[in-house]
């Protein structure tokens, strides 16, 4: 058995506590797979330690029993130190069958960043307790994380090591296996499931150390703590590095509440709930004000200190409304959405020429909904975009329901996805690229925006120039409850322009884009949500853009 999939290195982890009767069978089954194995002996007092000697496994021993949660957390750090990408945990009581491990390995290859749960087939012959227990903890998990999971109690799982070993945990016993799921979702990791078989022994035979009363109490306590924690939107210290401020707006509890309100009561009551929440943000979250300040100071010059609070409030309130409208579209569908799009026909005519088209989009208004209105062009749209955390939980990630065929090309891919984007353009596809924020290493050039030099990516213009495609600056604004206004400014790429050379044309295109963006934020001051610091200090304005020759 190869040691995992493309680039993934997998470690099998078996927590053991007085499982002398079953551990040998489990380890024999695991050994057949030829993968490295770590056994965490959680203070066993029976024959388990002796039974382990027969197997070539790595071993960690706790002098006394400290709980399965702690055993797994210890295994996570052990695996991280040795560069394992994933660990697969299975119980030593023989409930999980090693033969199912290849299924988890396939899933790891498919979704390397996901937590994968072995969903037990609760057919016949399973004690009532387990089924009830499962449904009960699934419900708590849904409330705490907004993600529904069919079998949150199964201990047969695959964990991505690096993202999980950085989080902080409270639970040390069984409740850990619940807590790790919630924190994984909070950290933006998707949950995946694979069907696994389950062997249940008659009650007499099954060696379980689950103490019904005490451990259920601990689980309930951890649930309450997590749900409470979620409801209070104070800053979580554990936001992963490199995430932009706008990534962590509100957290899952807040989003789940809003989604519940929108679904049940509609958007207006949801706006009502927004009032106190935004007030709290603006008053008690200095980071929020700090993120919006660069823009607001330049958009409303001459207002300092406290007088900046009101524009900040209106800005975040508008942003909250946009998120609510976007969620409403996802939940209620597009019927209630009213669209004013004067340039719609011009864009269709351009699109019908069948040439490649670069759509320069920006973090304005509800740009996800705007993109989804493009289904009338009946052409696949390639979107160069990295999903942010907050958009994931607000259901902004998938465009499936909207009828427009969007193919997300991640900027973290090969050469930032540029080969694919150029290929799509040369075959007459629409490629949407962010105009107001570059991802990763893409080249940036400075242009005066709202009176001061700011850094803008030039990838859209490079792509258009090298593939001889036209460009459209596609801007949107929320003009009322579930009402959006769309604007498409068109730039025809002509032979004459191409003779001017790439640098000249890209500079002119950037100036054109920034001009359009500036006019848009003049008309709709609170519609721009790029809370990155794009304005530059003097010293780090690049002499000439670090272009990526595509």
């Amino acid at each position, binding site marked *: 058995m190869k040691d995992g999939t*493309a680039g993934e290195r997998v470690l099998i982890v078996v927590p053991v506590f007085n499982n002398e009767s079953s551990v040998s069978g489990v380890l024999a089954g695991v050994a057949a797979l030829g993968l490295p194995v770590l056994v965490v002996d959680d203070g066993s007092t029976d024959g388990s330690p002796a039974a382990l000697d027969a197997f070539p496994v790595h071993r960690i021993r706790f002098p006394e029993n400290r709980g399965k949660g702690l055993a797994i957390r210890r295994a996570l750090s052990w695996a991280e130190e040795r560069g394992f990408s994933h660990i697969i945990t299975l119980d030593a009581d023989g409930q999980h069958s090693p033969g199912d491990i290849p299924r988890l390995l396939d899933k790891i290859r498919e979704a390397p960043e996901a937590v994968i749960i072995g969903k037990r087939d609760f057919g016949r012959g399973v004690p009532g307790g387990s089924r009830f227990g499962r449904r009960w903890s699934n419900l708590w998990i849904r409330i705490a994380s907004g993600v529904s999971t069919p079998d949150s109690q199964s201990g047969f799982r695959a964990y991505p090591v690096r993202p999980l070993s950085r989080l902080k945990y409270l639970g040390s016993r069984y409740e850990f296996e619940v807590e790790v799921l919630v924190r994984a979702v909070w950290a933006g990791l998707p949950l995946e499931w694979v069907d696994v078989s389950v062997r249940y022994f008659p009650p007499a035979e099954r060696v379980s150390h689950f103490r019904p009363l005490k451990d259920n109490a601990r689980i309930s306590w951890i649930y309450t703590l997590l749900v409470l924690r979620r409801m209070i939107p104070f800053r979580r210290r554990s936001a992963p590095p490199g995430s932009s401020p706008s990534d962590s707006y509100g957290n899952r509890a807040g989003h789940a509440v809003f989604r519940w309100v929108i679904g049940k009561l509609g958007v207006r009551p949801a706006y009502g709930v927004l009032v106190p929440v935004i007030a709290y943000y603006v008053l008690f979250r200095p980071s929020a004000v700090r993120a919006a300040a660069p823009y607001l100071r330049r958009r409303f010059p001459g207002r300092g200190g406290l007088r900046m609070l009101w524009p900040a409030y209106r800005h975040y309130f508008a942003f909250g409304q946009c998120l609510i409208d976007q969620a409403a579209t996802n939940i209620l569908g597009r019927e209630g959405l009213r669209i004013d799009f004067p340039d719609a026909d011009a864009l269709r005519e351009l699109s019908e020429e069948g040439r490649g088209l670069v759509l320069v989009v920006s973090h304005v208004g509800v740009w996800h909904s705007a993109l989804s209105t493009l289904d009338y062009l009946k052409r696949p749209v390639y979107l160069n975009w990295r999903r942010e955390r907050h958009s994931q939980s607000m259901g902004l990630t998938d465009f499936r329901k909207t009828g427009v065929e969007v193919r997300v090309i991640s900027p973290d891919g090969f050469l930032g996805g540029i080969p694919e984007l150029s290929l799509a353009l040369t075959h007459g596809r629409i490629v949407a690229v962010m105009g107001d924020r570059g991802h990763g290493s893409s080249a940036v050039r400075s242009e005066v925006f709202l009176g001061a030099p700011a850094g803008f990516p030039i990838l859209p213009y490079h792509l258009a120039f090298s593939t001889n495609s036209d460009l459209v600056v596609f801007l949107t604004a929320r003009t009322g409850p579930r009402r959006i206004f769309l604007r498409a400014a068109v730039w025809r790429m002509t032979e004459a322009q191409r003779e001017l050379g790439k640098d000249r044309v890209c500079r002119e295109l950037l100036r054109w884009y920034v001009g359009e963006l500036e006019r848009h934020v003049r008309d709709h001051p609170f519609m721009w949500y790029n809370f990155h610091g794009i304005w530059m200090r003097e010293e780090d304005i690049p002499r000439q853009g670090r272009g990526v020759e595509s």
Partner: protein
Amino acid sequence: MKPVGIHGVGTALACGAGVDALRIALREGREAGRSEVGLEGLEDFIPANRTRRLDPLARMALLAACLSLRDAGLRPDEASGRPTGIVFGTALGPQESTFSFLEDIIGSGDACASSFAFTNSVHNLPASNMSLALGIRGPMRTVTAFGHTTAAALLSALHWIREGVVERVLLVLGEECSAVMEYVVRRFGGGEGNVRPFAPGCTYRSRGGCAAFVLGGGDGPYGRLASVEAGLSEAEAAERAAGSDLLLCAAAGRADEFNLYERLWASHRLVGAYSPVYGSLPTGPGVDLAVAALSLRERTVFAGPGGAWIKGSAVSGAEGLLPGAVAVAGVEGPGRFTLIRVERR
């Protein structure tokens, strides 16, 4: 289901004869350009007087077959040691013989048609000549079904091995490139330069070449044929290919192939199209199968020449990514795909 393994691979391509020549071309990113398929190596396997009547396609197929036998550790005379079948897949068939027969009739008159040319112009002659040269007496099937050829050929081989009709199958897939076909491709808009898969215009250039495999029960050094599926819709093909580490598209420079393969490679992390190395072949999936087998045996994702890459890492070499499963996709017809998965545990 009894596993069917790839025990030997032999190729006769523009980049040279033998799987080593293919490996070097893939590793160094050499393009086929206009070079011919060299057939001189045939004499090392079969004495010249026993191959004197073979036409170019039969020669190429026999050379590839002998190379695949050697790669599987078998001398030509050992080929008939165990019950062996022959499956030969070709889309365009023996063109040289077909046109030289017409040349005789038109040039010298009806009574002067050459019986050599007519004999060789029958499509199953390459397979028959393999049987004669290697003494193989098992079942034989010659498949000529354009885009469906590779899948149909593989399905026959799989059936014979799994049902115990034979222990081994010599599977050969290939094309001959005649002057007539070059003219036809040029008129269809084929380009002069090198083949560029997914290029906006048509860079398809008619090129000859053969890939041969020794298939048998149980895993071979190149792994096994995990699945061969035909008539798949685009969505089905994308879903089947999803589980593999590397997807090879038999794109060969036709103008419309971007739309055909778009959904497939958009949903895949590592995609390669190696037609620049061996040129445009209607039985391209057959050569891609050889590239897939090589990638699995060498645990390597070959970078191939500049035009070969659409997406994925340019890393290659032993320590490169470790493919465990490679999918080969070919277009059979409008909205229909062949999807072959090769795996090596």
